[in-house]
């Protein structure tokens, strides 16, 4: 595995925090080992197209990830020190959340990331800068410029994604068989 790939710890509440906000793009909400008063869980769930799941207890469901992130930035801009943020989900989701949190002034020790869900990647085409979400395998055609891209095993924390470079630059048309991501 490439050295640039982050290593994630299993989900665990950081009890040094006074308030806890969990954001996830996965359907399963984590089991909480501690019954604390100050825990909120933000999810992305729809019960039918365009219909938002009802809010229950300390869980708040958003219609989609962009809506969740907009509210996250707003919440963090008003939060007091003592908050811990937990992001659980696909690698691009948790690093997007991480980058929003860092911009809000959280430090790395106040952010806990857990990778969960399908091993899909965000790929950034190095030729036209198009971003391709949820790519499951290491060869993908760029919807922006049509290039067949090889997904390099190098993770950009800033972009929360992987670099895609033209796979047939040497011999146009010669595209190897794709392999499904196993990490």
């Amino acid at each position, binding site marked *: 595995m490439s050295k640039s790939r982050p290593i994630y710890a299993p989900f665990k509440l950081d009890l*040094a*925090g*006074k*308030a806890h906000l969990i954001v996830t793009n996965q359907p399963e909400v984590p089991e909480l080992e501690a019954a604390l008063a100050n825990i909120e869980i933000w999810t992305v769930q729809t019960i039918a197209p365009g219909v938002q799941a009802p809010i229950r207890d300390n869980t708040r469901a958003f219609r989609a990830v962009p809506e969740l992130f907009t509210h996250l930035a707003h919440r*963090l*801009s*008003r*939060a*007091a*020190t*003592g*908050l*811990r943020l937990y992001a659980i989900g696909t690698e691009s989701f948790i690093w997007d959340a991480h980058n929003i949190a860092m911009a*809000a*002034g*959280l*430090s*790395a*020790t*106040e952010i806990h990331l857990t990778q969960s869900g399908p091993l899909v990647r965000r790929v950034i085409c190095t030729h036209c800068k198009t971003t391709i979400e949820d790519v499951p395998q290491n060869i993908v055609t760029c919807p922006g410029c049509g290039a067949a891209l090889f997904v390099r095993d190098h993770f950009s924390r800033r972009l929360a994604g992987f670099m895609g470079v033209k796979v047939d630059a040497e011999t146009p048309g010669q595209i190897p068989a794709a392999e499904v991501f196993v990490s």
Partner: protein
Amino acid sequence: MKMRIAKILTLSPSIAKFTLQPVSGALPVAAPGAHVIVEIPGPTRIWKNAYSLVSSPEDRGQYEIIVRRVEHSRGGSAWLHGHASAGDVLEVSAPQNLFPINRLAKKHLLLSAGIGLTPFLAYLHTLNAPFELHHLCKPEDEAAFRSLLPNAANITLHTSRNALDLNALLAAQKLGTHLYLCGPDNFMRVALATAQTLGWPDAKIHQESFGGATGGEAFTVHLQRSGLTLEVAPEMSLLETLEAAGLAAPCLCRGGACGECELPVLSGLPDHRDHVLTPERRAANASILTCVSRALSPELVLDF
């Protein structure tokens, strides 16, 4: 560096500002938070005390330090207050900075008590983000500290008449705030415990304490590798005892803040007085910070 005392400004009966100029050449630039070790000649021995620079980091012609005469002083500050005069030449170390400003902070919250204000006086020259300074002092020192601070809404002096609500202050800070603490031990302990109870991460708490060695019971130290057995007198620190025996013991801040002087303990029970070792490492009693810590047992054996 040889430096000459150019000016002594008495701010209160126990607080004085010293202006030091190099005997020759220009001084190194010292970022805000830096300190120097000043060698103070005493009648029986040399004292090495750390003082924060309060002068502007840009000023390469002189350093300014502020010295409080410590009650029951072991010698250093009493000599500077009682015997030093303009024209005296002292040996001063190059500046070291163990208390730098965190430039990623969105806001700086500076809390000091007593003479712990000094590093923040250097900060005031260059702070790049919004800040709030709260300084705690005794009523008799209020005028002296006020004379050192600009009159601004974000700078508050607290005496017994105007007590600081530490819990409310720390609970109200937004996520990008970094906390800086400098002052005597009991102030640091209370402020640190309050911040940690409110969930402040260690990464956002920066602290420096120059209480320095306070002395205590005499004890014996046996140095395994050097084959020496030394007596640490009540008014001497362990580090000073090693230095007096001609040993090149590691040290940097001489105030229990940096960890440079840590030595392995082979047997005996250290009396940990530093700000470096974690609770786990304190409990393990496997090492000691020689500049401030002493012994609870009559003898310590060190791997040195």
